[in-house]
């Protein structure tokens, strides 16, 4: 019988950050829902929003700041589900750089930041701290962080952006100990934003067939996520099988799967409106140059999750 085709564009390369989708694929959850899902890995300079706008994907995994910014640019993105409940972003600093309090110690330092649409949470945080990002004694020098944690290891930056589930552990694997480091989670700083939500175009939601397919997709994906939460080792193996670069290691992916499980825990896929408001508030509070300039409307919908969960 005919299956519905769906293409999912990930935000980053194949890794346990996206375990839920790979598990759903491998365990046949998508099949069961009558879906034929193609998962496209991302990369450092792939902007999922652009892929979605260009018609290269039906659903994307994206961070909410980028999605809302794109929405203001006139690309009508809608959040249809939010498998990640909490934020995994943090700033990891070398203890020897003498940073212990974000309020006072950042100025004059060099900080590594991810760009390509991932810089918004950082920019918001800095503007709440009242720090300029243009360098100088009263500001921070921003470095566009490349693909890895080298700027920290090479001491080119005092702090770099890390995810709790990934880069932080690469720093540890490289030989530094947690004692050598100081970390600042965005959620602890009150500037958490929602990560790794599922987004689609508004127009897609006007098509009843697509809505139905998306609902089935979200249902199967959440099933995958819950399975991955419970079986991190198996999830890591599945991810490894799907990694075409052959660069991932089982240890790192297993650890990542367990760390990601902490972030997905507590979400059934439904977007929590309080979290949404917190994100919007953070993004609006950006001082002279906020990421978004006004309260977005219709940036999320519960239609899909409501259907998926019933």
């Amino acid at each position, binding site marked *: 019988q005919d299956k519905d085709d769906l293409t999912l564009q990930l935000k980053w390369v194949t890794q346990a950050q996206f375990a839920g989708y790979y598990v759903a694929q491998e365990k046949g959850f998508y099949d069961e829902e009558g879906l034929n899902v193609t998962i496209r890995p991302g990369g*450092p*300079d792939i*902007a999922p*929003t*652009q892929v979605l*706008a*260009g018609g290269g994907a039906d659903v994307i995994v994206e961070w909410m700041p*980028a999605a809302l*910014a*794109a929405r203001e*640019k006139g*690309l009508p993105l809608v959040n249809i589900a939010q498998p990640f409940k909490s934020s995994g972003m943090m700033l990891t600093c070398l203890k020897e750089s003498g940073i212990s309090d974000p309020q006072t110690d950042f100025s004059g330092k060099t900080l590594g930041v991810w*760009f*390509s*649409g*991932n*810089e918004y949470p950082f920019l918001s945080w800095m503007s709440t701290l009242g720090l300029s*990002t*243009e360098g100088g004694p009263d500001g921070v*020098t*921003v*470095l*566009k*962080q*490349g*693909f890895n944690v*080298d*700027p920290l290891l*090479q001491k*080119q930056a005092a702090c770099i952006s890390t995810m709790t589930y990934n880069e932080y552990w690469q720093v540890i694997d490289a030989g530094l100990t947690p004692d050598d480091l100081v970390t600042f989670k965005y959620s602890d700083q009150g500037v958490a934003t929602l990560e790794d939500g599922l987004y689609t175009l508004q127009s897609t939601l006007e098509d009843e067939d697509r809505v139905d397919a998306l609902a089935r997709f979200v249902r199967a994906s959440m099933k995958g996520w819950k399975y991955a939460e419970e079986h991190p080792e198996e999830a890591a193996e599945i991810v490894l099988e799907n990694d075409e670069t052959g660069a991932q290691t089982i240890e790192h992916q297993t650890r990542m799967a367990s760390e990601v499980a902490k972030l997905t825990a507590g979400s059934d896929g439904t977007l929590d409106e309080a979290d949404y408001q917190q994100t919007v508030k953070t993004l609006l509070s950006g001082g002279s140059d906020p990421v978004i300039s006004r309260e977005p409307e219709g940036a999320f919908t519960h239609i899909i999750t409501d259907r998926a969960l019933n």
Partner: protein
Amino acid sequence: MTGALAGTLPILAVWAGGWALNAWLARFDTRLTRILVAAIFGITVIVLWEMIVRIYRVPTVILPAPGQIAASFAANTAILWTDFVQTIVKGALTGWLIGAAAAILTAIAIDRSPFLQRGLLPIGNFVAALPIVGIAPILVMWFGFDWQSKAAVVVVMVFFPILVNMVAGLAATDAMQRDLMATWAAPYGASLWKLRLPAAMPFLFNGLKITTTLALIGAIVAEFFGSPTHGMGFRISTAVGRLDLPLVWAEILVAAIAGTLFYGLVALIEKKVTFWHPSQRA
């Protein structure tokens, strides 16, 4: 379907019109018509681009129209200028100058030793064919994230093509010209200055011209692996992330203009320096 067809017709018409005009102009073959023909070709392409984007409603995030790009260019001149200085002046130009100077000096150094020439040339040829951009992440790791690492990438990228050309050029004197020097018992320095260097110029400029575009590409790509918060490569990747495609294309436009001017400048100097070479006399 018919809509697409109806859209195709004016596109074809513009193309045919531009081409016919050019075919007619090309028959005159004066300096003016040559410039005109090139310009008309370019304008035709731009008009077609604008028409295609409008007629087929190509989304801006995929391909902005030339009009939008021009508007973005005009609105962002300050940003474009900073990026230009960072990437092209500091990164590409410095790197190119250092790389070219190093290559020329190395070529002269190994020119005296046939042993070194035979050893270095095959390796140089090999390295010149390598995907050098692959070492960009390594050089960013070594030289930091500011323009120095970009210049280093450019140095490495342009070094071998220039070296190989220069060595070939220094060896490209004909036997009789060398024999003449021998009959005059010319010392090494004299035959270097008065024979080998002038004879090497056409080859050297060949290398210099090829590497102008390489230098730009190297400097821009290296910014993907870490950069400060300005620079053309930085801007391109960030603007893509922000879906500001007109800005991306404005940067591309800057790169293309700078590259063409850079190439043209080197070609102009070449014309002055190697005025005597048959290819310049045609």
